[in-house]
């Protein structure tokens, strides 16, 4: 598993880039009385992180990345400043896991001369959202990530820029272009069905 954002030091660095809220440092005593059990963090933000992972990777690969995201977050959690924006921190970790996943997928050999195994279970009925996942998949990475982190993860354009690199204006543009492209491909397709 990548330790990109798994260690305290790196989480601190990310927070220093704009997720750390105000600059005042809590005292040890304040910290001791305020850090919630990690279970509460999962309950509050698990759904958002799942939506982000699904938008970025599709439904089938989202589970692994969701789990890796929360294991890494849990490792770093005791060092998290108590005024940190927890959701932005989690989406940032998820982003690194998503990038790792894409990299690993590119390295994975694709079997060409093996017959596909018969499916053990019938594929689930295509839902209303499958066309949308497909439309998301067709977006360029940067647009898909900007849409996922801003519209589903709740990050501001400035925070998205910290995660993806580049300027706030570029992040805003990637997000707007992504939504425009989604409207085109997804809504037109729906209209024709």
């Amino acid at each position: 598993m990548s330790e990109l954002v798994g260690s305290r030091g790196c989480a601190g660095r990310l927070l220093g880039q704009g997720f750390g809220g105000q600059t005042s440092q809590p005292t040890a005593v304040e910290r001791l009385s305020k850090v919630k059990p990690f279970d509460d963090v999962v309950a509050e933000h698990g759904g958002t992180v799942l939506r982000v992972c699904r938008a970025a990777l599709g439904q089938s690969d989202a589970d692994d990345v969701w789990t890796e995201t929360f294991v890494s977050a849990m490792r770093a959690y005791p060092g998290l400043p108590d005024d940190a924006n927890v959701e932005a921190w989690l989406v940032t970790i998820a982003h690194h896991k998503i990038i790792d996943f894409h990299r690993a997928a590119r390295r994975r050999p694709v079997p060409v001369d093996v017959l596909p195994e018969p499916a053990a279970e019938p594929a689930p009925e295509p839902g209303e959202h499958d066309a949308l996942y497909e439309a998301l998949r067709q977006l360029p990475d940067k647009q898909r990530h900007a849409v996922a982190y801003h519209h589903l993860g709740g990050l501001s354009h400035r925070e998205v820029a910290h995660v993806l690199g580049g300027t706030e204006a570029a992040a805003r543009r990637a997000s707007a272009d992504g939504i425009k492209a989604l409207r085109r491909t997804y809504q037109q397709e729906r209209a024709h069905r």
Partner: protein
Amino acid sequence: MSEHTPDEVLSSLPSDDPPALARLRDRLAEASDLADVLDVAYRTLDTPVGRLLVASTGDGLVRVAYAREGHDAVLQALADRISPRVLRAPRRLDPVARQLEEYFTGRRTSFDLALDYRLASGFRRDVLQHLREIAYGHTGSYAQVAVAAGRPRAVRAVGSACARNPLPVVVPCHRVIRSDGALGEYVGGPDAKRTLLVLEGAA
């Protein structure tokens, strides 16, 4: 952070998926344990004395809490005093759950579990260790426990150690009653104390 409503084009994405999240939280409990980042695992159990919360560290069972203690407050205290890396992880507490179930159905008279006493220190910890010498079906007085713990005059301190026992039921502070035969106080309330003593045939 400002609230963002997903753009209308994204509105067909499922906004929440409770079955998937429940499954993922179970997976996280296993994965975090394997990755050695799960410091406090907990679960709840329904018993004849109400819903009990049980929590363990890598060293053993660290907390048994009655509903009247407020389970949210108990979890927050575990986060404060041990580590905030707290997750509901039922499987890690399977042996505890099994032994408690056997106890409450009368099939078990002593617990064979590793215990982590870190939430009690000094004399309070000594008292807890001596409580385990009072056998199933028997009772002792606060004064007798004070003698056994080597401080015969510390009867009140014994009472306070029992009242703050982090491991009730398993460390049997319910077997300590007043010298005049009255049941006395109990962290789980007087009804729970009576229920346990009746179950054990001691009252």
